């Protein structure tokens, strides 16, 4: 019998908060053999990060291990002293984190930070510290490694920061690497290269890995075994293929159902009990009469921020009335700039923006709030947490545009309109008096949508509205948006880097690269027959939920 590299038995963790102690982990059991990859999946708050931090003994002051045992390489490290832990961390047992840029010290160079890790474990030879750091950067396949040595984290892209982070984590040749959401927040193509890099390093060095992720597609593709966590418990674990093929626990079933596959449609994503706010609707045939002007038309729009390249370079497209258009591209492709241009928060340098047959590009952005068109074009922002005023109740947030744009006073009229908007966004009425910190992520997203639909817009711009949400919440929000479009005829401009979501929601697609349109057309045909190389690359990188790994079999 081979010895387990890491064994976690009945691990319990509690946090002391202002409202007493909260139990975060109710007895976790997981085990991992050398060289193996274990995926821990679950939604936010399920305790998957707490598990990894408890194993590393990195819980903050409020968190405490109250029971159970963590055994690493046959040693009980549950109550190991500081000195023992320090020797272990970063050498035999290492970790990489979500949000790599914040995980690196902003005022130390890449070289200094890598050297710090080597020095901490006595692996540094003073004479060729630089060469050692350089070799590590080469191992993580960073372009132009010599130049990167003296760079600071803010000078690197998110993907490069994660590579530096990996270089630090593998500097002392660990036998186990814990990767806590290593690709969340990165572009799909970067996600793929980072995961490929991790798999390669793992294979080369025979390293075991725990991959913590909310993305079932990612876990299914890269892990040998999966543990599913819900509310501080492991509800199910097993071999990846077997587990996802025949999930036994209802929570796993729900997660699997909510994860988009290559062929899933919006209706597939959420089981009936979750979709109660969004009853299935019969698709009304949308009229596309020739002769009526499109809802929105962009004509050779150009925007530059003074740099050597244009942020938006000669972009033209149309959205028909009640149509939906997806705007996809990697970060820096100009999609956010474009959405701000259309929302008239900034002015284009050249070209025209025509809304319902009327040019709106000539009204300066700072005066656009006076235009009657302001009501017609509304936006839902990416981060549901940061885009709500923490001192406003949900009611005030939704009432704000009504007060400002329609001059409604407090009274029955305002009440009716806010309730109507909340109903359309599927927000329960009893939540209207709550403040943002009293709402869940999905509820906050609904407040953001209700606020945007309150002035009865005709075009809704959605800037990555589901990027920060769990898959089951994302499924419900997507269905809600689709219903708004079908029932109320609101045109949707959906900005996202998640092509799968765009495919399900949007009729048409515009692919942007470095400010230029590289491909445009109906979503289905682009997904089936991408023309541009860039589009193909984006499509290949999408981590579909594909438990049978047809992809891997094909390439193998």
């Amino acid at each position, binding site marked *: 019998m081979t010895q387990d590299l890491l064994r976690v038995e009945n691990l319990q963790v509690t946090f002391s908060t202002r409202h007493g102690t909260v139990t975060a982990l109710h007895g976790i059991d997981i085990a991992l053999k050398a060289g193996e990859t274990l995926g821990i999946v679950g939604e936010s708050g399920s305790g998957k990060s707490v598990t990894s931090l408890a194993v590393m003994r990195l819980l*903050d002051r409020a968190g405490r291990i109250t029971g159970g045992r963590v055994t690493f390489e046959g040693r009980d490290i549950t109550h190991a002293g500081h000195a023992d832990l320090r020797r*272990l*961390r970063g050498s035999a047992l290492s970790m990489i984190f979500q949000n790599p840029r914040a*995980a690196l010290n*902003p*005022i130390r160079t890449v070289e200094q930070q890598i050297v*710090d890790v080597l020095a901490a474990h006595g692996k540094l030879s003073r004479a060729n510290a630089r060469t050692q750091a350089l070799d590590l950067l080469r191992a993580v396949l960073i372009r132009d490694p010599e130049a990167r040595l003296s760079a*600071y984290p803010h000078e690197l892209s998110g993907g490069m920061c994660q590579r530096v*982070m990996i270089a630090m984590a593998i500097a002392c040749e660990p036998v186990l690497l814990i990767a806590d959401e290593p690709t969340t927040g990165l572009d799909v193509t970067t996600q793929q290269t980072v995961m490929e890099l991790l798999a390669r390093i793992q294979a080369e060095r025979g390293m075991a890995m725990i991959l913590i992720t909310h993305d079932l597609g990612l876990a299914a593709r890269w892990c040998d075994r999966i543990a599913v966590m819900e509310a501080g418990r492991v509800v199910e674990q097993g071999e990846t293929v077997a587990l996802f093929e025949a999930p036994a626990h209802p929570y796993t079933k729900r997660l699997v159902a909510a994860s988009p596959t290559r062929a899933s449609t919006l209706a597939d994503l959420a089981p009936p009990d979750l979709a109660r706010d969004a009853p299935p609707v019969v698709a009304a045939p949308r009229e596309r009469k020739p002769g009526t002007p499109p809802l929105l038309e962009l004509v050779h729009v150009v925007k530059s921020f003074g740099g050597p390249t244009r942020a938006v370079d000669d972009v033209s497209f149309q959205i028909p009335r009640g149509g939906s258009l997806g705007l996809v591209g990697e970060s820096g492709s100009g999609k956010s700039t474009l959405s701000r241009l259309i929302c008239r928060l900034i002015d284009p340098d050249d070209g025209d923006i025509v809304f319902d047959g009327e040019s709106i590009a000539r009204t300066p952005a700072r005066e656009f709030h006076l235009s009657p068109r302001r009501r017609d074009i509304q936006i839902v922002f990416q981060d549901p947490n940061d885009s709500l005023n923490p001192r406003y109740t949900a009611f005030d947030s939704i009432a704000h545009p009504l007060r400002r744009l329609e001059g409604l006073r407090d009274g029955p009229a305002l009440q009716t309109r806010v309730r109507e908007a909340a109903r359309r966004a599927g927000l329960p009425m009893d939540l209207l008096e709550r403040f943002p910190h009293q709402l869940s992520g999905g509820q906050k997203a609904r407040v953001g949508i209700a606020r945007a639909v309150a002035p009865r817009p005709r075009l809704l711009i959605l800037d990555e509205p589901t990027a920060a949400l769990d898959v089951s919440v994302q499924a419900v929000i997507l269905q809600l948006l689709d219903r708004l479009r079908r029932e109320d005829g609101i045109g949707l401009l959906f900005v996202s880097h998640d092509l799968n979501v765009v495919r399900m929601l949007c009729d048409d697609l515009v692919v942007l690269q470095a400010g230029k349109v590289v491909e445009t057309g109906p979503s289905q045909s682009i997904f089936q027959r991408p023309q541009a190389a860039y589009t193909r690359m984006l499509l290949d990188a999408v981590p579909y939920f594909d438990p049978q790994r047809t992809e891997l079999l094909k390439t193998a």
Partner: protein
Amino acid sequence: MLTGILRRVGRRLLASIPALFGVVVVTFVLMRVLPGDPAVFFSSGPSAGKEEIEELRRSMGLDRPIPVQLVRYLGEVATGNLGRSMTTGQPVISDMTRRLPASLELTCTALFIALMFSIPLGVAAALRPGTAIDHVVRMLCTLGVCVPTFVSGLLLIYAFYYLLGWAPDPTGRIDIFASAPPDITGFFLIDFALKGDWEGWMAAFSQLLLPACTMALFVLAPLARMTRASMLAVLGSDFIRTAHAMGLSRLRIIVAYALRNALLPVLTITGIVFSTMLGANVLVEKVFSWPGVASYALDALLASDYAPVQAFVLLMAMIFVMVNVTIDVLYGIADPRVSVA
């Protein structure tokens, strides 16, 4: 890099000229609006006749309309003439150059002492938030802020001079019977050191210690509280967790990772504290008979002596600008995220 810094300093200094001009004008007008007639104050006595006062007023140029006076004053300032003090009879410039080093020496020493104590205290409080250390530091800071400097100064004199006899008598920068060092920089500690007179250096230093401590006590709070808050924020950040996960030693994490990042906002506060100390701690100068610029300006203000007050405000404004530029440059060096250009 260096040319970038120089260019930025130059730009900042140029940009501060309108502000300085505004300060000059506002001070000038304020002095004229305030009650009090310098001519009456400086005439031979309470019995001075009306003609004598009129004569004095004419010789001081006070009979002219205020705009005319202002234009003339601006012209003089532009040529470097800040006027003559009626109280000392000396040109304001020479009074200032004699007294400014005294104030600067006191303030710099006080700031140094304050930083020496506040940063370790703030770090200690941040490392153990909510414990006895944290509460003791908080109490010290509260005391420092609550007790007015003239009270804490007098208490220190009472304890160290009267009761213990450790400190020399609190009168000025040096014992009245000792000889002052040669006037090289105006900073006694530096001048004595340059001359190699270590006995004199010790004498000047012991004179300096009590007033400097009094001043330091007052600014301990903002510096220590800022260090604590910023250290707490940094200790909670992701890259500190990374450093722990990579097995770096505790000392290295606290000093090289946390403290260096935490000191950035403290640097900003230090600049503000320095400028404030220089002008606002007039009470310390008064209590210790310290011949500094602040007490000089206060005397002039009470005597309705326009020229020294106006010169003092201008000087403070210029020092404020200089300190801010210096802090900006230091910040740019300490934090690579701030672009130098």
